[in-house]
């Protein structure tokens, strides 16, 4: 395993990231980066691309690009004013990003940020200070910017020196959380934290799509003037100009939230993130052949280790572990008209209900994949959660739902939590949405007057006791090798083996890499596969249907990839057939066993 720092020669790594560094440590109008998901797209806006100042003595043409607020008075009548267009995206941190991703990307950037952070922590505060003082408003902007910290304690600390007081003020976390509570930041998943950003895009915004994951490099704008403008408007403008008050209060709140909460980021460059695993270089793999070849050779051995680990986790069931690996590296790689290819939804049935097994299983998965979310399918959740994003026309925004996820996010559906009871309308809709997600890898966003289909690429893993009520590509019935009485003990022991982090990192890298590999199939093997199918059908037409064959092809593909092979070999094909047979016989056994018990 190469050291994770070896390939970070990325000069852009020096740029502080909004994901890691708290907003108040960052210098306004400086270059920052932000790893995010495009949650909503607002309407394009026209801005002054160039304008002239009003003061005749200093009449110069200024550039309005990459800024929210103009400097000095603007000569609105100047002929030189240029109107330009830009687009605003509402971006949130990648939903369901697991803690280890944050830690590692922080530590990777750490070498540079270690230098940056302490300095910025002081510099910007002084900057801000002076900025405000220049603004000649000694109380006004502060009141607006810090409405929650309370003025009195601050004025007490004032004499202790500028720097200290600033630190205290800016560090106060309460200010963030309290204000966040009455401003819904619209994260897709409940309980998410982190800054959301209004990203202003200056060119080529048509190339971005909703739910794209990006790393945005841009100029941070947290000008207090922005929120000041908004607040003032709230208070006084309603009578002055009917045109402006027509934007509803909600819309105002959503489209121009206080900059201290939702900073503006003026995009200079955006790097699309095909994955958000910090261990894997984000540059295209072809450019990194050395890295690729070294890791590819290791893949088979890492796979064995991972298989052993997962077998252990899955109560000694090696077959289920095999399928879990296939599931974890699956990804929709193409679509043929409506049919998504490469998806591999796994239903692990027969999960023990004792000792919150599913929860532990999820925790393990969380350790392995960059993004994941566990949806407990309790009746209450199904009836109440908003899974499908919905357009709110009052506030003119897309209210997010739990299914608005980045590509390759692992969605863990815990069906063991489901109990008997009545599903209401929302519940039925939610179940339908999950079904659509699994079958077609798409989510129909609710636009009130119509629905709009957004394709997605989410790995769905269903843990259930019996066969899941949701469709799935493949069902594996768990056969625990652990006797029920020892289950408790065994389960608690799983966590007693905290994998060495280097080991975990290997697994993480392995899973992300296997997913990005190319795959092909040679003509000979194609022929062999076809013959095989015909033969199988000849013996017993019932033994394999077209659907089974579909699945077999996917399994073969994933199996090859999991071994680091980029084309299908005869061996892998046989192996795929073998594990499929094992799985099917197990499922049949299980069914017979259920039927046998029933009458």
């Amino acid at each position, binding site marked *: 395993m190469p050291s994770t720092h070896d390939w970070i020669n990325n000069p852009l790594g020096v740029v502080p990231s909004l994901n890691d560094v708290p907003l108040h440590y960052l210098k306004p109008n400086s270059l920052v980066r932000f790893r995010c998901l495009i949650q909503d797209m607002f309407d394009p806006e026209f801005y002054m691309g160039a304008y002239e100042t009003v003061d005749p003595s200093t009449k110069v043409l200024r550039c309005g690009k990459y800024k929210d607020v103009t400097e000095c008075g603007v000569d609105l009548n100047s002929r030189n004013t240029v109107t*330009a267009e830009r687009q605003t995206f509402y971006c949130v941190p990648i939903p369901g990003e697991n803690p280890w991703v944050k830690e590692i990307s922080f530590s990777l950037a750490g070498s540079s940020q270690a230098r940056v952070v302490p300095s910025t922590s002081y510099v910007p505060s002084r900057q801000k200070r002076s900025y405000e003082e220049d603004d000649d408003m000694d109380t006004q902007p502060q009141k607006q910017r810090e409405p929650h910290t309370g003025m009195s304690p601050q004025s007490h600390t004032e004499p202790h020196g500028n720097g200290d007081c600033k630190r205290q003020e800016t560090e106060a976390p309460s200010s963030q959380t309290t204000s966040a509570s009455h401003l819904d930041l619209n994260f897709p998943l409940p309980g998410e934290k982190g800054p959301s950003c209004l990203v202003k895009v200056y060119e080529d915004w048509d190339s971005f799509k909703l739910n794209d994951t990006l790393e945005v490099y841009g100029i941070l704008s947290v000008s207090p003037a922005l929120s000041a*403008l908004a607040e003032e408007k709230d208070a006084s403008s309603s009578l002055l100009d009917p045109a402006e008050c027509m934007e509803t209060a909600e819309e105002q709140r959503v489209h121009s939230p206080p900059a201290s909460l939702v900073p503006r980021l003026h995009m200079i460059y955006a790097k699309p993130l095909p994955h958000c695993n910090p261990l894997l270089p984000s540059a295209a793999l072809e450019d990194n052949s050395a890295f690729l070849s070294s890791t590819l050779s290791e893949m088979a051995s890492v796979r064995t280790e991972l298989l052993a680990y997962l077998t252990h986790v899955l109560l000694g069931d090696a077959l289920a572990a095999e399928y879990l690996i296939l599931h974890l590296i699956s990804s929709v790689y193409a679509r043929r008209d409506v049919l998504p290819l490469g998806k591999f939804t796994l239903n692990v049935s027969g999960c023990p209900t004792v000792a919150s097994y599913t929860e532990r299983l999820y925790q393990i998965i969380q350790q392995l994949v960059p993004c994941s979310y566990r949806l407990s399918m309790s009746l209450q959740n199904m009836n109440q959660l908003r899974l499908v994003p919905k357009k709110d026309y009052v506030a003119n925004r*897309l209210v997010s739902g739990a299914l608005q996820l980045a590509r390759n996010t692992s969605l863990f559906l815990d069906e063991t939590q489901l109990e008997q009871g009545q599903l209401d309308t929302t519940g*039925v809709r939610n179940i339908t949405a999950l079904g659509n997600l699994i079958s077609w890898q798409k989510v129909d966003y609710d636009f009130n*007057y119509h629905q709009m289909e957004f394709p997605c690429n989410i790995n769905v893993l269903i843990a259930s006791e019996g066969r899941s009520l949701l469709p799935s590509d493949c069902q594996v019935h768990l056969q625990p090798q652990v006797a029920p009485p020892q289950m408790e003990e065994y389960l608690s022991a799983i966590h007693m083996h905290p994998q060495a982090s280097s080991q975990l990192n290997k697994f993480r890298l392995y899973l992300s890499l296997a997913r990005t590999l190319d795959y092909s*199939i040679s003509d000979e093997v194609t022929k062999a596969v076809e013959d095989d199918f015909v033969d199988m059908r000849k013996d017993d037409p019932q033994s394999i*249907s077209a659907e089974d064959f579909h699945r077999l092809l*996917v399994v073969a593909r994933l199996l090859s990839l999991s071994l680091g092979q980029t084309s299908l070999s005869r061996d892998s094909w046989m192996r795929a057939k073998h594990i499929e047979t094992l799985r099917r016989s197990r499922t049949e056994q299980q069914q017979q066993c259920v039927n046998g018990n029933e009458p």
Partner: protein
Amino acid sequence: MSSPTSTPGRKRARTDNPSTPSNDAATSPPSQRRRGQDSSTGELPPMPTSPATDMLSPAVPQDTSLFSSPRHSVLPSEVDMSSPLIGVRGTPARQRPDLGSVRKAPQVDLHSDLPNDDGAAVSDGQNAGQRLVIWGTDVNVGTCKEKFQRFLQRFIDPNSTEDENAGLDLNEPLYMQKLEEISVVGDPVLNVNCGHVQSFDAELYRQLICYPQEVIPTFDMAVNELFFERFPDSILEHQIQVRPYNALKTRNMRSLNPEDIDQLITISGMVIRTSQLIPEMQEAFFQCQVCAYNTRVEVDRGRIAEPAVCRNCNTTHSLALIHNRSVFSDKQMIKVQESPEDMPAGQTPHTTVVYAHNDLVDKVQPGDRVNITGIYRAVPMRVNPRQSNVKSVYKTHIDAIHFRKTDEKRLHRLDEEAEQKLFTEDRVQTLKELAAKPDVYERLSSALAPSIYEHEDIKKGILLQLFGGTRKDFSQTGRGNFRAEINILLCGDPGTSKSQLLQYVFNLVPRGQYTSGKGSSAVGLTAYVMKDPETRQLVLQTGALVLSDNGICCIDEFDKMSDNTRSVLHEVMEQQTLSIAKAGIICQLNARTSILAAANPVESQWNPKKTTIENIQLPHTLLSRFDLIFLMLDPQDEAYDRRLAHHLVSLYYQSEEQLEEEFLDMTVLKDYIAYARTYINPRLNEEASQALIEAYVDMRKIGSGRGMVSAYPRQLESLIRLAEAHAKVRFSDKVETIDVEEAKRLHREALKQSATDPRTGFVDISILTTGMSATARKRKEEVAQALKKLIQAKGKTPAMKYQQLFDDLRGQSETAITKELFEEALRALADEDYLTVTGKTVRLLA
């Protein structure tokens, strides 16, 4: 364009003469006093070219309430656009807030700008040899007016298809007839199709698009002159206003950009929100508290300059605003969202704010699809006097001049929407070329869902369903509309890609709905009444069937649907309407939808020993409403398997490009269908009708030999529809024998698959129409007779044990008698009033 840029910056430089209205008020009556927006002609002499124009040279002392410095010696003259006529009795002018009111005129710094203004305007004028133009434009009021009058008097469009022109003589000047209409009806609005203007005078059109704010008032002026010349005695509510529409620069909301600011645009979209009515003050009425002297002040940039001194008695601060004598205009904010069709995939729709004024208020409702013609505006964010920094963003909106609902006509006539969809010449050419190919039918059907293997006949059936039959109207003779939609049911083993086929169709058609029988209730399919939380009004919300009017409703898991839900389909599938009586709302909605349903067999695997009805357990009344019922089964033979395997493997491993070469593009297919549905209405020719008659008679004959009826009139109708659809596929206006042949073939194929009596192997339509094959019915009768004999043989026992009787009958009969059969026999006898069954005993009657 004569002006260098068309940014708000340019606009801002336009002089707006701030002569105080109170001065005007003293000199001119209110109706003539209103100024024409911010269009002033700089310091040019009054215009000689427009004699009827009321020229106001405000030689009044410059009241400089807004400017601290006295004005230069320039006296701008104004063209009063909104009240051009003197001596028009009884017809007041009316402000046009839609063209932008003075309110929006930006502040002018006279110091810096005036010299510039002079230069520009004068040079403009000089170059053109004293040709006077409105400042900032190249519009000469006189010429423009003349041109427009000429247009009104001469424009003829003999090929007009617009329904607005219905009833007009197409060979007479179109707009003169419309003026005549106005004089009769009294609705002082003249809608002008910009396309007509363009074809008549491209230059005028260009001016209209580029300077709507100046040109439209000129048009108003022109049309009013013309109108009152012709109809001097008419009295209208207010002067005629010209409403241009269909500016050819029709755009999608996404493509609006800064260049469009202040231009006339037409965009299409869907209304998503409307605000309440906003009264906007146009003119404030002040009265002096001391001497009761009245004065009027016009709203200037959204503000009212309250006169500080009464001009009559010189008291300061004595004037009070009298609300109910002030003049207000109506205004409404409308939010419009891009229509879903215009959007690129993976993006969210854009929205635009539209302001509607006066009588356009409340013209549209949320949910309406509209084409809006209006002027695109960008207003800088309000400058905060206390802050030197402003947000460098403009607010944009559209001042609506004309609304045109795109889906309005759908209620009355069909295919209006499809007509909106314009096909370019090239496209039509490609489509026609495609249609001319002899194998177009095969080509199209193989292009349908290429990822699904084979099932050629099913794909053909679905293809015909997509095209549909010809709509026939028999309402004159009382039968109403004949169904033109083709309904198809697919049933078969699970995992035979039925759902995938449904998904494909759903994605292909513009008005498709996809529901699953499991998840939908009767309400979700039809319509339900909801209380709007805001207005407390009852609102009718339409369900999937109504939403897919003129489209296809795909229903998956048809068998899982509750009976209750299925029952609503009866009406939809034959009458093509939905009747609703709920919460005091009684109505009948159109649901001219084709239904494509998929059902799984009851026993999860198709039982070849049972009939279709027995396999899917659907009421036969419903089944008979399907034109085609296909079975999707695994054929299970080696050659098929090999092809299937190859297909699947290549599906997974072929590159995208390779696949695309093989098949028709989905968009071509879409266009092809849309074109055929819109323009092709095939009718039966003589031979075809003969062929149909023969086919029908043959079908009846097949059965008659064995005492069965194998065809009903419904099947004949199905045949006709299929034949028509096939003719549409060929882009043929005539249904010919080949169409009938294919319809027959397909119908037979479908029958063979679904209506074969498993006991005899014959095609028997009565399986579908009565739910039972003729042999089964015969057998039932036999059992009943045998049972009757048995009972009679028992002698005069008034009551018997049920189980006993069953055993007896079983012992007596040679063939196996199932419990169901026995019960059916009992029921048959009970129907004859021979016996009754109560619990476990059977009693004889009489």
